[in-house]
């Protein structure tokens, strides 16, 4: 009804191209608004931790954690005994490190890891998907078979194998995940490009002598971004959970100096059994909240981009 109706569009019904309306729609939905705020908070914490940790009350060098090997046993949160004492808000965990600091540090590590993986996969996927759909023919066949191959690799096995042969480091893990993650984006972009390519504004641009590169990146790409953005927000959450999971099973190189949410949780798992609940609860809640809010945000974005829901 929307498309074919002259004035209906003219009267300013929200459209994809309008960033402001998308944003407004996003905020109109309470779930996604909360999601957005929480995600922004997390990002802010990570950024502050990187550039000016004193704001968070972290006085020491960000790259070293104070360990207390004389008392490696977890200490409960300080406010449990004395409510005005907030020196150890989350208590400590093995080996005597401040859990609050560790969590903040690991948020930074987790977020940058997942952003790196998603961004890498996204860029490769977008470019390959775009070329594949735009030029078609053998290139399309080639790239699509390539995605099939990468899709059929079980990433967990690949990650473990790479860990064995190339050494356990976050960088290698990121590269491995990028390798198996780009095909998702390639497919999304390719499908979207195939439909945008048929729009007559693309043909009009061709007929007025605009070159292919410009058509691809100025006309087609911006019009394929909506589903990609949605995919990105879901994938960020997936990536954090994935990393946490790999940590939990003890696969990644995380340690007390390079903490990570999954690692903290797995350490806490042992202590929680003997009653030191905070060692598990705080890292666990942090992961939960982050993944939940990212998913809420993704849902909200998908709705905001869906023309049927834009009434």
């Amino acid at each position, binding site marked *: 009804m929307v498309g074919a*109706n*002259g004035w209906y569009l003219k*009267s300013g019904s929200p459209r994809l191209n309008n960033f402001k309306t998308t944003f407004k729609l996003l905020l109109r939905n309470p779930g996604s608004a909360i999601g957005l705020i929480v995600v922004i908070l997390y990002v802010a914490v990570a950024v502050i931790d990187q550039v000016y940790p004193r704001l968070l009350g972290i006085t020491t060098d960000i790259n070293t954690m104070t360990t207390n090997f004389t008392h490696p046993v977890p200490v409960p949160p300080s406010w449990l005994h004395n409510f005005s004492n907030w020196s150890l808000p989350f208590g400590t965990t093995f080996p005597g490190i401040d859990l609050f600091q560790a969590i903040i540090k690991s948020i930074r590590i987790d977020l940058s890891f997942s952003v790196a993986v998603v961004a890498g996969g996204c860029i490769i996927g977008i470019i390959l998907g775009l070329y594949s759909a735009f030029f078609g023919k053998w290139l399309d066949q080639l790239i699509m078979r390539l995605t099939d191959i990468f899709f059929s690799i079980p990433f967990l096995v690949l990650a473990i194998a790479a860990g064995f042969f190339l050494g356990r480091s976050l960088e290698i893990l990121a590269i491995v995940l990028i390798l198996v993650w780009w095909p998702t984006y390639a497919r999304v972009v390719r499908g979207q490009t195939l439909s945008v390519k048929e729009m007559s504004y693309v043909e009009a641009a061709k007929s007025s002598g605009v070159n292919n590169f410009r058509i691809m990146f100025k006309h087609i790409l911006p019009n394929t971004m909506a589903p990609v953005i949605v995919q990105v927000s879901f994938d960020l959450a997936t990536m954090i959970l994935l990393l946490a999971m790999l940590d939990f099973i003890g696969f990644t190189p995380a340690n007390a100096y390079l903490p990570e949410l999954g690692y903290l949780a797995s350490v806490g798992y042992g202590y929680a059994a003997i009653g030191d609940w905070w060692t598990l609860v705080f890292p666990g809640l942090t992961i939960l909240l982050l993944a939940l809010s990212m998913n809420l945000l993704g849902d909200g974005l998908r709705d905001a981009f869906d023309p049927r829901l834009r*009434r």
Partner: protein
Amino acid sequence: MSGMNTILKVEDLKTQFVSWNGLVKALDGISFEIRSGECLGLVGETGCGKSVTALSIMNLIPETSGAVTGGKITFEDYNLVETQMAACKVIQTKTKPRLKVRRSKIKENSRKMNKIRGGMLSMIFQEPMTTLNPVMTIGEQITDVLYAHQISELTQRIIARKSITEEELRVIYKHCVEGNDLKFLFDFVDLNNGLKGIVPQIEFIINRKDITNYRKKKMISDLFDKDRSVPTQINRLKVWKSIRVPRFLPPLLKQEAEKVAIELLSKVSIPEPTKVIIQYPHELSGGMRQRVVIAIAIACNPHLLIADEPTTALDVTTQAQILDIIKDLKNIHSMSILFITHDLGVISDISDKVAVMYAGNIVEMAYTENLFERPKHPYTQGLLKSIPVYEQKKTELAAIPGSVPNLVHPPEGCRFNPRCDHVMEICRTTKPVMTEVEENHSVACWLYSKKEEK
């Protein structure tokens, strides 16, 4: 054509939508009537509210986005919008309009409308593909409609051919009771003596006050059963609840329905209907699909057929075929039709009377010939002048300047005033009402109302 009874009467109908940027006043008090056997053409530009009119009559305005907010639609003896208006209301809050929906009323309304829709009142939509179910064969789709509304007619057809045994009649009979089509029970008592004795028994059971409906149904079922077995009983009770499309049908009825489907398809000039009933919609061309849609719409001999741009998506040569079929329906089967289109050529071809719509209002209504010969409203005049004349070549067309107004903030007074050549002071402030300037020719324009006042 005078002296015929009015079949549909729309009075001061108002429909509004709640949208992103405000209240869309899509229909702003339109009134018209259709007499039986007459074809009224509703013509206007895109977005003027033609489809909304049709949907309002059919009670198909989506309750998530809009509602009928005023007026009255009388179709034969039914008041169509009463329950609908109670079910769904537009509330104007300070910042933006909102819809208030009452679920229970909606259910009541749809129960009421299901009896009327598809039976006495049916509609053809613009896009044939969206009305046909892609996973059902054409035959199934037509027979479904027949089962829902025409069981008694089907049975009567079977009986009239006398090829029916008493046993088969029992089966059908039983089915009718299950379908709660009780009125029909008493229709053909005389036709078959063998079952005569049963009718009073059923009547008796139905009229008992001391037992529940559930029990009544069971008792009636038992009347027909010779060898009772528990599973069938349960099965039957399930069927009982779904009155609309029964899952279990006696094969005889099925065959008859298929026969009727073939007849209907040949009525709309589909070649080889026996082949078509086992095909799926996507196997047919656009024109064929539209014919199938028409066949479904006329399956239950509707008293009024609403056709919303049935030919717009088709080619001229196919359009000519479809118009021919609709004309036949009108002339031979004397069906009343509300024909909606934006094509003045089509409207002049098919309708007896024309109502011209502009931005949610009917601005002019007259018999077709009068309207095309002596258009009164400046909009109608402009519209007729802006189409190239077929008979001779002209150099310049007289276009109406400007474009259709926004229905969220429509112009005050006459909604056509910003584009009108004859605009006066009063046009900008007060809305003109429909006045009859000639016999059976009414216009909503101050140019004509004023003359009367003088």
